[in-house]
């Protein structure tokens, strides 16, 4: 065990624990988007930034291991400024606001990211894939957090999903961009379960009815 201080509270954490684990143990909230405790940390979203005494700049809580005696501040203004800016950027790439129940919307709400984005610009192209009976893909809502790909690879072992493209054009897809049905997908739903934006969702019978009425893509 090692000893760290989180927002003024000293606590013992396991060797190798990350700052995020320590913060959770201390009951402190650190915003995250690409983190899922069932998966290995990924370090992509950069909203879990925190201040560590002696570090020249904010550090990502999810991938930084604790050191003995580390003094961590989860609500450091600079770190929080970065997190807010990143969430603002993420919201600005979506063609529509994420549904209120999604993790992204909840993180944005808790960080009080509201109003016109400071850096407006291009949004993701709308691309829907409703061919699979249980899983729906709305590519424009994807924020490339990699959680679905890791859920598929690490949790389910189906290896049906992949990150695609690069830069602003990054996204995810199933198989050879051929949809879930043509891939090695086993319909477990782990991807939809972890998705923080509803880019991948599980279709219920009710959804199917609504969707077929809305755009005629799939009739039940």
């Amino acid at each position, binding site marked *: 065990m090692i000893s760290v201080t989180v927002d003024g509270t000293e606590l013992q954490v396991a060797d190798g624990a990350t700052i995020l684990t320590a913060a959770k143990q201390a009951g402190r909230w650190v915003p995250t988007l690409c983190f899922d405790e069932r998966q290995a940390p990924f370090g*992509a979203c950069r909203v879990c930034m925190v201040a560590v005494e002696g570090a020249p700049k904010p550090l990502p809580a999810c991938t930084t291991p604790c050191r003995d005696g580390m003094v961590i501040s989860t609500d450091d203004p600079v770190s929080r400024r970065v997190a807010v800016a990143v969430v603002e950027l993420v919201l600005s790439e979506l063609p529509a606001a994420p549904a209120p129940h999604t993790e992204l919307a909840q993180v944005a709400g808790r960080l009080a990211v509201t109003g016109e984005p400071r850096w407006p610009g291009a949004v993701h192209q709308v691309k829907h894939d409703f061919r699979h009976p249980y899983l729906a893909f709305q590519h424009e809502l994807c924020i490339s957090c990699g959680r679905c790909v890791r859920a598929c690879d690490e949790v389910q072992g189906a290896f049906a999903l992949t990150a695609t493209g690069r830069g602003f054009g990054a996204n995810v897809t199933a198989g050879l961009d051929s949809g879930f049905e043509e891939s090695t997908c086993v319909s477990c739903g782990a991807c939809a379960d972890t998705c923080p934006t509803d880019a991948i969702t599980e279709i219920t019978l009710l959804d199917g009815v609504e969707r077929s009425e809305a755009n005629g893509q799939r009739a039940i």
Partner: protein
Amino acid sequence: MLKAAVEDHGEVTDEDRKHAAEVSGVPEAAVYGISTFYDDLLVRRGTRHVRVCTGTACFAATGGAHVDAICEGLGLAPGERRADGSVSLAHTVCLGFCHSSPAVRDGDLIDAGPDAPARAITGSCAEAAEPEWVSLLAEPVLTRPGDWSGLRRALTELGPEALLAEVEAATVRGRGGAGFPAGTKWKFTRAAKGDEKFIVANGDEGDPGSYIDKYLMEQNPALVLEGLALAGFAVGAKHGFVLTRSEYPRSKPVLEAAVEQARADGLLGDDILGSGFDFDITIVEGAGSYVVGEETALLACLQGLRGTVSARPPFPAERGVFGCPTVVNNTETLANMPFIALHGAHAYAELSPDSESNGSKLVCFNERFARPTVYEVPFGMSMRALCEEVAGGLRDGRSIKAVQIGGPLGGILPASKLDTAFDFDALAAEGCMVGHGSICAFDDHTDIRALTVHLLEFGADESCGKCFPCRIGLRRAHDMFAVDAPVNRERFEQLLETLELGSLCAHGSGMPAPLRSLLAHFPDEMGLA
């Protein structure tokens, strides 16, 4: 395998992907992801595939006019192929002919110079010449042909511990950009647990404006290979890799020939020179991605994956190639090691008597200069002496407006600050860096707003897309300047802070450096509000 498909029939098809997945054991989806990442796999190729260099030296030479001329002449936009399949066109960054910009590539033939675009249009490209490199040192270190004398001494006199001690004492700061001491990486890798360890030479010199590693790999391959073998001996690795760039089509064959020669001479392979030390080297060529120069992305590329960055820790010294402890050193960094093995740390420090930085450095100049080539120089010379005396100032009566040093993540020094010394600390004090050692001049005709757009276009295009600040932020920064409207300075600076503090790797966190230089020295020319 995917690259071979492109060479064979111009594009990667689903059949190719399925075949690659079957043979490699990589899931089909992952193969698809790989095939959408690398430049070389993205553009459908015609019988004649033309690539126009959009690097910074080519921008400095023409302001981008050469790209427009080729697009117009071929009747194609970058990324397009003629309906009859005869010709295709793509961007490329950078071909390493920055001494003779603009540069164009037709197949594997690289042409450069003011008339190269016209020849690319008519299909009459001619192989461009590369000027000889020059050493300012009485006894050249990096431009001396490698003769394996350092390895001989290490094997017969020093042993691995003494070699490592010399390299640590020499404080060899990495020559690829970050400037991290190579001896420290070696020490960590040597100490790391694991029976199998690897050495990787980072030859992915993607920095536009830089052609130093290109010269080293293609004109002095034995010195680079000797550096790898020394690293292997010091840390206990039996195998090394050199990752070359596909933008430098000559590098891999030249290095492979040098590996063959070294094996024939008993300098690579089993029981080298009867010492009991086994070491061999494999040359791997990338597929077109700037960020693959970052060490974790490089390792991903080397293993055939998407070249995206991974969070550190774990560092490659703990978990690198195939999960084993790995040293990743820049090509030029490794080329310093034979001298240290032969002459020791003290002699190495003496190479730059006027500077705290040790050893010599290769620098290269762009086409705007009168005598552009690669020069081996001591640290500590003033930038003015380098630009005006060594490279002869600018051609055609032009004067220097500013120079970008060390690649696209390097700060930009205005002409008024040319008395700054060329070394790690002095440049850092001006928001600049030694970086790769490229010195790219922008002349007095340069449009600073256009330069800003150029820098950000590169930044956005080459973002690997993994971390959010870089993926979205560089695109937003580019778009702010690419439209014909004033840019809100405060918001731009807030975006730069987000990139600097939030990004996962040096691409996103480094891109603000040259932009901050422009904000500091040329704010009136950026079109700010």
